[in-house]
């Protein structure tokens, strides 16, 4: 849960925040592609070294660390299972090569989490929706997306209130067997669902009252405009794609940092 929560947009006014969401998405995709294309630790480390200053530059270090902390459990599992399975299948020999490989896989996961953190932490849903609109996705879908995000805090508050109200009526959620405990969520889920249905009706009324769907040619208060900075980043992205393809096709291979010596 904390992993998801740490991906929530944090308001800010940095060049990373103000970047065109399409360019930023492309950048994220390049990070993503790199980490999938390479299994050696060196290229992954290079990507990581590029990412960290971006995080700091966007002033979301704290949030990013939180997401890494949330991901650390899964990262640990990746590391241990790889290490253990290679150890087992290679006849009970643990080499530095296996250690390096496991570390690379773990780093790959962290790089992936970081690239998504950078994107989601610094891109407002409003901008995201604009980008979707530019991608010719129907506005109804867009609207649903924004509304869903808008109502997350409202629903969270409501769930808390319902839980408080039922606990005040003697409902003890943490007592009883597993089945009994699951059943105890009925008094919480039912009001939540019924309220949501009621809410959706009210939302629909309010939408009608705001002339939703009045014209095919909807305008938008916010517009996406590529700046010089965006074009600069775009150029760098193109260059790095060329570099990546070259490396993948013609580069003989990255050196192993730890060698192939036997540990155990």
């Amino acid at each position: 849960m904390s992993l998801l929560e740490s991906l929530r947009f944090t308001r800010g006014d940095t060049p990373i925040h103000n970047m065109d969401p399409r360019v930023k998405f492309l950048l994220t995709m390049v990070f993503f592609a790199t980490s999938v294309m390479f299994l050696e630790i060196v290229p992954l480390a290079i990507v990581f070294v590029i990412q960290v200053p971006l995080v700091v530059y966007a002033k979301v270090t704290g949030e990013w660390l939180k997401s890494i902390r949330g991901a650390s459990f899964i990262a640990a599992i990746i590391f241990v299972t790889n290490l253990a399975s290679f150890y087992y299948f290679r006849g009970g020999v643990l080499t530095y090569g296996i250690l390096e490989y496991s570390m690379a896989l773990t780093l790959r996961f962290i790089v992936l989490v970081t690239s998504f953190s950078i994107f989601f932490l610094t891109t407002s849903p409003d901008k995201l929706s604009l980008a979707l609109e530019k991608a010719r996705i129907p506005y109804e879908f867009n609207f649903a997306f924004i509304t869903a995000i808008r109502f997350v805090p409202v629903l969270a508050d409501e769930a808390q209130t319902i839980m408080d109200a039922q606990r005040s009526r003697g409902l003890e959620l943490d007592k009883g067997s597993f089945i009994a405990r699951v059943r105890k969520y009925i008094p919480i889920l039912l009001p939540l669902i019924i309220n949501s249905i009621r809410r959706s009706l009210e939302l629909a009324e309010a939408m009608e009252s705001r002339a939703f769907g009045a014209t095919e040619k909807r305008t938008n208060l916010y517009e996406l405009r590529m700046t010089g900075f965006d074009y600069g980043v775009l150029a760098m992205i193109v260059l790095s794609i060329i570099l990546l393809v070259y490396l993948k096709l013609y580069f003989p291979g990255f050196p192993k940092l730890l060698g192939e010596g036997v540990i155990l």
Partner: protein
Amino acid sequence: MTIIEVRGLSYTYPHSSKPALRDVNLDIDPGEFILLTGPSGCGKTTFCRALNGLIPKFYSGEMKGTVKVAGLDTRENPIMRLAQCVGLIFQNPDNQIFALTVEKDIAFGLENLGVPKEQMLKEIDWATENTGIQALRQRATHELSGGQKQRLTIASILAMHPQIIVMDEPTAFLDPVGAERIFGVLGKLNEEYGITILLIEHRMDLASKYVDRIIVFDGGGVVSDGTPSDVFGDESIRLLGVGTPRVLELARRLKAKGLRLDKLPVSAGALYESLKPYISVTRSEPASDMSSLDSYAGEFHHKPVIQVKGVHFTYPGKVKALNGVDLTIHHGDFVAIMGENGAGKTTLVKHFNGLLRPQTGKVLVDDVDVSSTSVAELSRRVGLVFQNSDDQLFEETVEKEISFALRNFGFSEPVIGKRVEWALNLLDLGEYRDKSPFTLSGGERKRVALASVLAWDPDILVLDEPTVGQDYGQKERLRHFLKQLQTQGKTVVIVTHDVEFVAESQPRIVLMARGQVMGEGSAKEIMTCPEKLSECSVAQPEITRLFGMLSAHGLPRDVLDVNEAYDILVRHLKEVER
């Protein structure tokens, strides 16, 4: 020229046998400021829905008659066309804010209409300026306070330049000062731009100062229509259970007693001006202050049941909700906690049954620390009834709903049967026993929620905003009920914004602002301190405001309700005559 023309309007909701509106005929002129009122379920909300075509387009069902708004027949024009003439604003602001930032939400309607960006920016400037939210333009909508959200909904509708604005109980969740600000905004829009305003409101004392026409609905039809003094001067309207503005009620009674008033005033200032010629001009010695005796009487305290000692509480990632609260509630007390939105009132009462644990400080219930007791155990002693009954109702029948808590607490079946019976009778719910709580009206659902807590007979009863959305008759019933509980030796704590309710039931008052207790005392003491009240965004009752002015003539200052005011004035007027 009329802007709204309603002819023979009748309407029945689908799956309902009873018509919600019967033969409504109304003419409304441009620039009128109108209050729609009537007991719950009288059809006023349905009427509003008929004004922008939600009825019959959004709700199917059977509509007869015609509604013409700005010359457009609501049956022949799509809602989105009508929406540009009639801006409908609903009760819950949360359910009509669509965007993540304030300016984007104001733009939503304009975007839908395809307004170009430059013009949108101009409209947003204009709308935010007229609702006083310029400073909030870039803010995230979920961070706004209740009052700010309500002003945003007005701005969002205003940006579309409707000729008519219709609002359904806009101030239900607001503190008195926040409510006055909303009325101020509406008053200005009406006066400066000639926008016709129709308003549903239960805050009669406040609303009647602004409006020039009141339309009373009952049983789906219009039963009275006229100026506030005409409508409330009529005996039959008062019997409907529509609350009369207190000042007007006082004036009406004085007039009946023989005082010469040509027009019944609705505000304290106006009544003061009309009374002035009849009361002694010279300032006599103030009558001996009996209120000090009251407070002495209160000194014979019983034992404390809830003690709050230096409590601080901060929600994760948010500002401080409680900032060092000290408070003692004694056995048998009747206490009202009042104060601005976000003052920490609900946070405080959630400490009483252990839902929240103090981060620093202590809360003791019957000398037992809440931090070491479970919520279920504490709830046996402290019954907490939440503001919105829909946040707790879930069972198939009212009977099951009421027995839910009893089962949780492990009462035996025969006892449960008896307790349910008792609670059903107490709140007059017997006939709904086998009905689903969801099919009941708002007021009835609130009573079911109350019954479901009273059923286990807690010694301390805490009610969060019990009067919200209740009409005058329901409030009166609640007031008597609370008094009755108090005489049975129960400790009753209410959290409320309802100044008139407090003035009439006269509990001990605890004033809160910014997570602290700002003042504490009898209703009379607190209500006569305008400075302290305004610091906590609570307004004085109109009657007390009147007596604040009259105190210059030697009349007592600490008068809260109509009956007392009437007695004092009649006595005084007789003396002056002699």
